[in-house]
């Protein structure tokens, strides 16, 4: 399967017969849109880097860096339409933020204050992070089945028809849930895009252990249309996913997009990648950085340094703001343990809550 790429690693345009139909879409994007994409990548990286720092300083229990994967994430996030729904994995900081999740809400998960922390009704359909690998592929597929049952897709009006994006990784592609999701999506003609970021590693296990074919190739066996893009090329990721999402929404045809990318950081802050991958490999991927590529492209289009430095200034503010939030944030009330187990009161939990209060009061504390 050929991989679509529009920008070379330095941001210069690659135009050939293979990608000219994609350029015809990309050429319609305005520089304002390009700059917005760059901005989302730069701000996310600043946030991500500062969250990593906060973890090292003991302020977060764990951090999951997305550095290096911002290109594909920006492409697909910008390709999504307002009415769409996003089922992230746990590394899609840019994507959920783009839909309306505040960076603070992401950090609250990793400082141990919440398992979720946002309401999808307030985040333009960005659902919660999902930590059990692959599970969300089924939730997204079920949701997309519901979209179709509602008649909210397939009318042919891309401004109204809904589509669903679900994110998972090369490791997740081996899970039974991921295969079952493809089966259900195909059988029920669900308007869902499987956005698979092949970042080459599932913690320490290389993607060659998960699959000996490209992941995109697998999808055809399920009867799902598939494509492959350079996931560090935001522009290519945008045009291809835009078309696939519109096919999903208009034709109720599930889609599978493999994004070829790389996890520059550790799997999480608990990981030590020097134990399993070479610095040569890492360096070669650093030279393919999605942000530098977009910047190169924009520079060539005559975007001035003032634009870049304004974004950089904003990025510093984002970092400072997340630091301020994290250092000032409070501990959740112990009521959080009991209050949301069921949608209404549960006698046994109420008793346990009371017993805890009585126990705490027995120390004679200042109530």
């Amino acid at each position, binding site marked *: 399967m050929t991989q679509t790429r529009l920008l070379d690693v330095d941001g210069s345009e690659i135009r050939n017969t293979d990608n000219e139909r994609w350029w015809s879409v990309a050429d319609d994007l305005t520089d304002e849109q390009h700059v917005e994409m760059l901005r989302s990548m730069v701000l996310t990286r600043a946030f991500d880097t500062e969250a990593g720092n906060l973890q090292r300083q003991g302020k977060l229990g764990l951090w999951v860096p997305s550095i290096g994967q911002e290109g594909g994430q920006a492409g697909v996030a910008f390709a999504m339409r307002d009415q769409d729904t996003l089922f992230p994995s746990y590394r899609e900081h840019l994507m959920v933020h783009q839909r309306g999740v505040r960076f603070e809400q992401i950090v609250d998960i990793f400082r141990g204050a919440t398992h979720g922390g946002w309401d999808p009704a307030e985040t333009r359909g960005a659902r919660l992070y999902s930590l059990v690998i692959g599970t969300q592929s089924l939730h997204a597929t079920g949701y997309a089945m519901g979209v179709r049952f509602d008649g909210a897709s397939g009318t042919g009006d891309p401004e109204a028809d809904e589509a669903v994006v679900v994110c998972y990784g090369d490791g997740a592609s081996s899970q039974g849930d991921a295969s079952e999701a493809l089966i259900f999506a195909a059988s029920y003609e669900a308007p869902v895009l499987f956005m698979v970021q092949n970042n080459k590693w599932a913690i320490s296990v290389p993607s060659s252990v998960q699959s000996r074919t490209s992941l995109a190739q697998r999808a055809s066996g399920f009867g799902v249309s598939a494509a492959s893009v350079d996931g560090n090329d935001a522009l290519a990721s945008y045009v291809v996913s835009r078309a696939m999402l519109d096919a999903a929404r208009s034709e109720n045809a599930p889609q599978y997009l493999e994004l070829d990318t790389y996890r520059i950081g550790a799997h999480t802050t608990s990981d030590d990648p020097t134990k399993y991958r070479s610095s040569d490999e890492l360096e070669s991927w650093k030279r393919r950085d999605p942000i530098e590529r977009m910047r190169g492209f924009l520079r060539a289009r005559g975007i001035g340094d003032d634009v870049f430095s304004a974004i950089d200034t904003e990025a510093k503010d984002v970092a400072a703001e997340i630091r301020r939030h994290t250092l000032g944030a409070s501990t959740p009330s112990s009521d*959080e343990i009991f209050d949301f187990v069921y949608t209404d009161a549960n006698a046994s939990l109420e008793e346990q809550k009371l017993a805890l209060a009585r126990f705490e009061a027995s120390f004679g504390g200042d109530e």
Partner: protein
Amino acid sequence: MTEQLPIAKALNLAMRDAMAADDSVLLMGEDIGDLGGVFRVTDGLKAEFGTGRVLDTPLAEAGIIGTAIGLAMRGYRPVCEIQFDGFVYPGFDQIVSQLAKMTNRHRGRQAFPVVVRIPHGGHIGAVEHHQESPEGYFAHTSGLRVVAPSTANDAYWMMRQAIESNDPVIFMEPKAKYWAKGEVSTEGAQYALHESVVAKQGTDVTLIGHSAMVHVLMQAAAIAENEGVSCEVVDVRSLSPLDYEPLVESLRKTGRCVVAQEAPGHVSLGSEIAATLQERCFYSLEAPVMRVSGFDAPFPPAQLEAVYLPDADRVLDAVDRVMAY
């Protein structure tokens, strides 16, 4: 309307009435369409409501539960059929780590009204994996409601209430009693979904059980009565939450108690009930709370099921033991 119905038909009628009342109710499962399920519990519903409401799904339990979760996020109320007790495990993660925790993860901002129907228990002489009682796993899982009717009227009303619940409900069906008839009144519910109910009054010993076991307890109580021992039978219709009031009240009266279940006894619902009752009724107890369970071994080949499953004789043996104190 009041009529005599077997439990399977009462369940069928409940789903039909729920689907007629609410368009968001969907049925999902393997072979539940034209075949009506391997036990015919969904018989005729596809013909009546169409393929958009009754989904013959791919053969994948995680897929069924996982997509039901997504459908619930979209506003649907899916009712999923698991074909047999022993086949729920491929969907276990989607039930215990996803469905059960979703409301909590969303801090109560989204409801997950999914019903998972599981025909369970022995006495049907089937091959391996077709006669188990996995309800303890689910009752152990916070966020799930777990119920188990034993009568046709309860089958009808508890299914209606389960479908109306905004929380996930694991609905254990007494498959050995699917064709046992009882009076069903569709006029109004007699009990709330999670009430324990005294099925038969008595004064000497309290017998506690759920689902098909209640029928065994009633049989044991009748035999004991002839021997001069008066048994009260309490039907624990809901395993989570578990309504202890009627159990405690009964035990304060009788002072003696036998808890019976088909599942292995080790770390079981029966153990939990026994522990709670001794905490709450210590001064009323005349004898230790006894448990009668399946053995701590895999469910045996069908020719041995009668040995493995507690029957009236094993219950009566325990009654003799508590009466000896």
